[in-house]
């Protein structure tokens, strides 16, 4: 059976008004359906730019420097195998690969006053092969 090279990429760029005092956590997902073959993850990575800042302060107070990224590989029923970023070596094979879901998370903040500024960009990608 032929090997198919696949990719999933997801990026969230967020900017909030300084009137907002509670910054919600980020959860975003991207997915693709597969053909039930054997799947090997070859690379999974995450990167982040910016973050949550105090008002008029240049240094981020964000304590989640990279966000958190998981590739959820669904293999039928309630079964799934999860892969966590970062990794750039081939994973053990997973079978049958029915769907691949890239999940990106970043934390939220709450302040008693509107003293937060938010400008953050969070990106993740996964490269994998289905045979």
């Amino acid at each position, binding site marked *: 059976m032929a090997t198919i090279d696949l990719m999933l990429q997801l*990026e969230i760029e967020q900017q*909030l*008004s300084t009137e*907002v*005092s509670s910054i919600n956590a980020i959860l975003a997902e991207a997915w693709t359906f597969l053909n039930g073959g054997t799947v090997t993850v070859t690379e999974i990575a995450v990167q982040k730019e910016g973050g949550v800042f105090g008002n008029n302060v240049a240094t981020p107070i964000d304590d989640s420097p990279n966000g958190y990224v998981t590739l959820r590989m669904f293999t039928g029923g309630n079964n799934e195998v999860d892969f966590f970023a970062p990794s750039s070596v081939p994973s053990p094979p997973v079978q049958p690969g029915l769907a691949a879901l890239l999940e990106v998370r970043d934390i939220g903040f709450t302040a008693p006053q*509107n003293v937060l500024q938010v400008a953050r960009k969070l990106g993740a990608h996964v490269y994998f092969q289905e045979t």
Partner: protein
Amino acid sequence: MDILIKGPGEVTVCLVDRAGKSMLRETLRVFGSQTVSARRPIELELETSKGKMRVSPVLVFCGDKQTVTFDGKEPAAFTRHRCKEIGCTDKEAEAAARGEIHHLPRNAPVRSSFASLPRP
């Protein structure tokens, strides 16, 4: 509310207050196969120093190969309904449904497009 995206490309959504002023701007870029999908759950109430603020989502930009829904509904229809729910006037609700809002100031350099690249 769930923002559901089908197809690769870039989608920009803002959350606006009853005056049509943007409180949050998000751009979601998704790439992969032609059948790639993405989901972004988002709260339609924001906490401010003056208390809770109800907001409406507005679809500002969507790629040619993409379809977007808000909670399974067509974005303009959802925005029109939600804007009226949070107290926008009919005129503001119609403008928001068309993606016309008061944007947050941009604080990042604008990216080049292919058309803007200087030719040798």
